[in-house]
């Protein structure tokens, strides 16, 4: 996949309110943003700044209260639930903080889950699983169950699952939050390497200073608005 600078995400005055105990919380208060293909971007900010909510809105996990979100030139608000599911399946890879994996499925089954939803044939699935496990340094562990591997290895499997179907965008919500510093750094290095190798777009929400340091672009949110949008030179 080539980094051709194509716009992957475009948001226009995106707002998101939600109710908590009958109180309306204005989590996102009008964000205009463009993320281009191949970017390695971190959205940072203190707790309650709207990072996760914004990530949910731009991935179609939640609908914006106001404003527009284009993902791959498709307006999310025009899609129904089924179309959104299919769109996420085919275009977005997700990595969450923890408990990412289905504990009753083996490493291989967890990784092939999305390919199963896509209807990829068994042989092809197996080939891709073996390839990606090699890529993330976990070859030979395909029959293990998540509870039997370390937290760092679980996050590697989550990365593999997110990337194996070759989506254009990887959304990672605090992916290093539950890991020790060394494991976090190792995983971040892996993602950076995969970003360079495949040209996939990575968008993180994070508190982690290490992620901010390694990102090409750091978008700082405060009270649901973009406070600062800082681009760095390529590493």
């Amino acid at each position, binding site marked *: 996949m080539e980094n051709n600078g194509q716009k992957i995400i475009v948001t226009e005055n995106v707002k998101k309110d939600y109710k908590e105990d009958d109180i309306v919380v204005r989590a996102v208060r009008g964000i205009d943003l463009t993320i281009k293909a191949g970017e390695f971007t971190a959205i940072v900010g203190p707790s309650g700044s709207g990072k996760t*909510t914004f990530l949910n809105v731009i991935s179609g*996990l*939640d609908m914006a209260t106001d404003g527009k979100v284009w993902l791959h030139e498709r307006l999310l608000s025009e899609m129904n639930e089924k179309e959104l599911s299919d769109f*996420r399946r*085919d275009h977005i*890879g997700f990595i969450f903080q923890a*408990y990412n994996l289905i504990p*009753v499925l083996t490493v291989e089954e967890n990784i092939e889950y999305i390919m199963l939803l896509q209807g990829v044939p068994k042989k092809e699935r197996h080939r891709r699983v073996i390839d990606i496990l090699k890529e993330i340094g976990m070859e030979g562990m395909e029959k293990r169950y998540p509870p039997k591997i370390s937290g760092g290895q679980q996050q590697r499997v989550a990365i593999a699952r997110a990337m194996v179907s070759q989506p254009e965008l990887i959304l990672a919500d605090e992916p290093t939050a539950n890991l020790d510093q060394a494991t976090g750094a190792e995983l971040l290095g892996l993602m950076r390497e995969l970003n360079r190798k495949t040209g996939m777009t990575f968008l993180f929400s994070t508190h982690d200073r290490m992620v901010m340091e390694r990102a090409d672009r750091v978008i700082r949110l405060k009270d649901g608005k973009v406070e600062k949008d800082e681009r760095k030179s390529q590493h």
Partner: protein
Amino acid sequence: MWFDMKLAWRNIFRNKRRTFIAGIAIGVGLAAMLFTDALMIGMKDNMIRSATKSFLGEGQIHRKGFRLTPDVEKTINNLDGIISNLKQEEAVERFTPRTVTFGMITSPANVSSVMVYGIQPSSEKFLSQIDDVLKEGNYFKGDGERNIVIGSDLAELLEVGIGDRTVITATQAESGNLVQEMFRVSGIYHFNVKEMDTGMAFVRLSKAQEMLGIGNDVHEIAIKFKDIHFAAKKDNPFWSKYSVHGNEAVSWTTLLPQLHAMLGIFWISLLVMGIILFGIVAFGIVNTLFMSLYERMFEFGVIRAVGTRPSGIRRLILLEAGALSLLSIVLGILLGSIITLIFVKVGIDYRGIEIAGTSFHEMLYPVIHIQQYIIYPIAVFAFTLLIGLYPALVASKMSISEALRKSL
């Protein structure tokens, strides 16, 4: 689909103890249904046997109108033709002719009204159980023409014992004259059914025919079939075949409407019990599935986030309900079979207990039918899937972002 089935099967074993408890609860419900159904069939057969074997027979032939007003002259028409036909009937195991009349029985101590039956002891013993429940004397042994067999309560009322004299007063056919005949008590029976122990007296057929002046005619032919269910079959042509020449042939369902109605209520009570048990099963399933659902909210959020459609979530929950149901069905069949087989072997002692005018004379044994092991498990499976729809719908409609917030 195969992958979903595998996932569902593994999911239900994530919390083995909970699954086992839920499985046992549903299984016990199914086992109870299997046992109750088998018991009901056994009880139904037993009640029919008890009611028909004691004296009635599974069917009877009379002159039309005799059942309503049992006049002495209303004897069966074309008796020889009927007897000849009955002998050739494949379905008929035995039959016996009887005379039936109201009479007065008198002893030196007391007097009572009774139904006096003239019977043929040789064939009667296959149709009724009078000979089986004799508590004193004998059942028309020897040639004694004036022997009479009466019930224990009647003997007590008349203050008579074996060998004592009684006098029967009855009305003769045609003339309407009263006739009196002396009989000696040769046997006393005890059925444990009040009407039979107080209100019936049995004499030889030939003596009764002579006393009533009806020649060789009879008032009633009682029939026993090879299959106990034959008589109750709907639209059975047997009854219309013999309801000719001014006669009327009816099954026990007509002769004992109260028993027939009672058996109908049996099935209603089984239905009510089924509804209650299925209600318990429903709560078990819904509770288990919801507990499992709320425990895995974040996981469902992840599954939905990565592209599983709402229908995929519904399918997964329904497959889990199905897997739980299959497990429960296996447990239920095992448990139900063991309990039923134990009682099939040892029986339940209801002897002497009277229900709907029918006294049980035999041990009660549950009856296993293959349909029980098809219908009830299928019903539990279908019901589980139906009930599983509710948590499946809830899971498929949940907000992904809220689910992702749940356990973190």
